[in-house]
């Protein structure tokens, strides 16, 4: 397996108004290789990818493709040079079919020549099959789950038969089995001679899959294209954050048995299809709700918040039956908060400022006569939490969209802290955020619980679940399958969880 240099970037620099995003970054990709690009949020990974794929133009530095210097004026030129990419954002046309999305690039050859859909579907089916995806290529993308959309994007990049393929967080919304499938496919692709660049926050994945690695820190190389072999997890973390990973391991927490439930669901059925859901979270407890994507966990949280009606059963808050019809009632009457999994869609108003987002839950309680409310008042209330969470922002006036994912997530948590909720539903808290922030959030959730907040933690990240939860409830197909008391051992707990899931599927 002869490995040659497929693509090289040297001394790339890039500035945006007010920030120097990249300060002379270099990277070498070889054929027959999967290369990991690692770094914390804001280290410059996405910017580098956008430069390689022609979305941005470097201020300095050279891009060399198979020995020849190239300048990509637009994504189209990059595609023409067979440099493909799976971006972090959803980049599909919602109403187009799967097949058409996969082949959108190739349509441009002649603007008027009729599209041969039969052929398109046939070709697309091949790529879907290769990825082990059982989807009709004629299905509109908008009807797919988020995970399947992600896979379609990967199929789309693959269909270009790219010599260089960049994957920006491709596994963020995939289930473990989908991830395994993807990896085996990527390895096949590698063995056929392609050069792949893999970006992920999940170090385990990068270590498992990649053979070489580049780490960025603050827009510079912390290491450049060195073999993955011989690097331990701690070494990589040190490269990424410049110091060793803090101790964020599991800690046994005991909630005295006499503490009454803060929230209790009794025989709940919902219009979305949940049946016979019984669960409770006591004051100071962290209860995990585990399940695969599509198991109905987020939906359950939304039913609790009154977004969809309950058809049977009751929700009790502090032992009293509560009829919650909206998030507003949940927040202002029952002091229930919800950190959304969909940060950009539901969690934050991206175009508004840090202050505008962090304070959104306290406007109403803070406002005086006639709704009078000053920024000073809101700032006074919110700043302690922003500071406590160490949100990195030039000012409270900064537009949230300009912050990194980790900082955005901190803000979407901070707003519930500022509101002083007693019950917090946390949905996938660490999607797309870096190690440091993740560890920080974990500490924070524990601290909240220690101080008496009842936390219902929804996550598909099993290590995270086992690190944090006191008890783990397993949900599959909108029903609770059972409960495990967490003892902190990864092997034991994960096996228990998977058993519960599979038992229900076998039944």
């Amino acid at each position, binding site marked *: 397996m002869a490995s040659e240099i497929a693509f090289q970037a040297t001394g790339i620099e890039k*500035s*945006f*108004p*007010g920030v120097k995003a990249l300060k002379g970054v270099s990277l070498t990709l070889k054929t027959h290789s999967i290369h990991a690009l690692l770094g914390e949020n804001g280290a410059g990974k996405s910017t580098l990818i956008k430069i390689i794929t022609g979305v941005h133009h470097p201020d300095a530095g050279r891009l060399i493709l198979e020995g020849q210097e190239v300048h990509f004026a637009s994504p189209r030129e990059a595609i023409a040079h067979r440099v493909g990419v799976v971006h972090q954002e959803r980049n599909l046309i919602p109403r187009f079919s799967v097949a058409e999305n996969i082949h959108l690039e190739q349509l441009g050859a002649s603007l008027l020549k009729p599209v041969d859909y039969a052929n398109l579907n046939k070709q697309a089916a091949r790529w879907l099959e290769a990825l082990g995806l059982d989807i009709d290529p004629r299905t509109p993308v908008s009807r797919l789950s988020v995970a399947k959309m992600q896979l379609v994007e990967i199929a789309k990049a693959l269909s270009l038969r790219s010599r260089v393929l960049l994957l920006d967080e491709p596994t963020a919304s995939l289930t473990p089995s989908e991830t395994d499938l993807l990896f085996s496919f990527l390895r096949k692709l590698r063995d056929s001679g392609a050069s792949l660049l893999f970006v992920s926050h999940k170090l385990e994945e990068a270590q498992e899959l990649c053979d070489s690695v580049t780490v960025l820190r603050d827009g510079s190389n912390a290491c450049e294209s060195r073999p993955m072999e011989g690097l331990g997890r701690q070494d990589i973390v040190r490269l990424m954050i410049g110091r060793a990973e803090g101790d964020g391991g599991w800690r046994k927490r005991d909630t005295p048995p006499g503490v009454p439930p803060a929230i209790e669901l009794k025989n709940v059925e919902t219009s979305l299809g949940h049946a016979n859901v019984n669960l409770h979270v006591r004051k100071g407890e962290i209860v995990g709700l585990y399940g695969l994507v599509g198991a109905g966990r987020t939906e359950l949280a939304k039913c609790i*918040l009154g*977004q969809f009606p309950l058809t049977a059963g009751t929700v009790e808050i502090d032992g009293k039956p509560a009829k919650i019809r*909206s*998030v*507003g009632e*949940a*927040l*202002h009457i029952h002091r229930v908060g*919800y950190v*959304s999994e969909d940060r950009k*869609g*539901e*969690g*934050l*108003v*991206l*175009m*508004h*400022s840090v*202050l*505008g987002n962090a*304070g*959104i*839950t306290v*406007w*109403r309680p*803070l*406002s005086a006569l*006639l*709704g*009078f*409310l*000053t*920024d*000073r008042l809101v*700032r006074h209330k919110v*700043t302690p939490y922003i*500071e406590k969470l*160490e949100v990195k*922002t030039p*000012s*409270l*006036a900064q*537009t949230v969209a300009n912050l990194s994912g980790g900082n955005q997530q901190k803000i979407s948590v901070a*707003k519930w802290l500022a*509101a002083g909720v007693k019950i917090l539903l946390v949905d996938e808290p660490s999607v797309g955020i870096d190690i440091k922030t993740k560890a920080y959030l974990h500490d924070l959730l524990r601290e909240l619980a220690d101080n008496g907040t009842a936390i219902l933690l929804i996550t598909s990240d099993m290590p995270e679940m086992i690190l944090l939860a006191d008890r783990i409830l397993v949900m599959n197909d909108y029903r609770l399958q059972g409960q495990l008391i967490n003892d902190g051992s990864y092997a034991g707990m994960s096996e228990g969880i998977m058993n519960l899931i599979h038992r229900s599927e076998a039944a």
Partner: protein
Amino acid sequence: MSYPDLPAKGPSGDIVGKPRRNTAATRFYLTNEFGLIALIVLFALAFQFATDGFFSPFNLFSLGRIAAVNIMIGLAMMVVVITGGLNLAVGAIGVCAAMTCGYLIEVVGLPWPIAILSAVALGAMLGFINGWTSVRTGLHSFIITLATMSIFFGVMIFLTRAESYRALPPVFAAFGRMKLLGIFSPLLLVSLMAALFLGYLYNLTAVGREMLAAGAKPEAAEMSGINVGRIFIYCHMLSGALAACAALMLVARNGAAIPSMAGQLGQDWLLIAFLGPVLGGTLLTGGKASVLGTCLGAFLVTMLTSGLLLLQLGDFWIQSFLGLLLLAAVLMDKTRRTFLARRNMA
């Protein structure tokens, strides 16, 4: 951790994404508001040199009076545009309110302050109908207000049989003709008050902030405990009330409540209603409002029209020149911002 540049600031209004003078000066130069002020000054000077009497007291007075109404109409549209919706029925609501005011004074014989309040309340009520229908059906407010525009106007025309009400107390006409310091129309003060009220609303009240948040991202606002449906209805009611105010100002200006004040179906108001907010930097997709920008935008358009009329450029061609000036204005503003953004980076 602390935010060194923050504590000293007054109410920053940054929630609107609208930096004020007390933030970095360069950011102010980048705003729409500054661009509009620059354009207004530029064109005012140009008109002064090119025409006779642009700055004559009478022209300033009439310019201010027209601008006052246009600003109010622009604000009435702006408050709905921030929800990402539209209110095509501004004109129809306005006329309905004005005719109600006339009816209450002339036929019912109510004292004029009560009649004015009732008219504004009617405007808010018609706005409520728009908002409620739009929220309940989930249809875009475009199609709802398109239909209600017909309905409101039709009911008005049916009930009044297109008859005007002109037996209004003399205070109305006197107010429309009054000159402050010889050049200002008091109508400008009314618009100023409305603008200040909206500025207060968006910067200093919970409801105002909720309007902006709900407009920017309804899903996120809903999931943060804001009752988005109710907030959208408030926005439509506010729009109706402001449209009613604009119509009452026209009643003062015309000395009568007339069905044709906003043209067939109230369509005559639509262009100016959108021009002000859009030139002023309000996003049609919602979530961002600029009260000052809307005022300046509406003023700029009024001024361009006035200046062109004074220039006496070929009668029938004047509309073309207005269009070209508008294009020139937005292109100049665009160039200025691109230039500043580039220089900032260096």
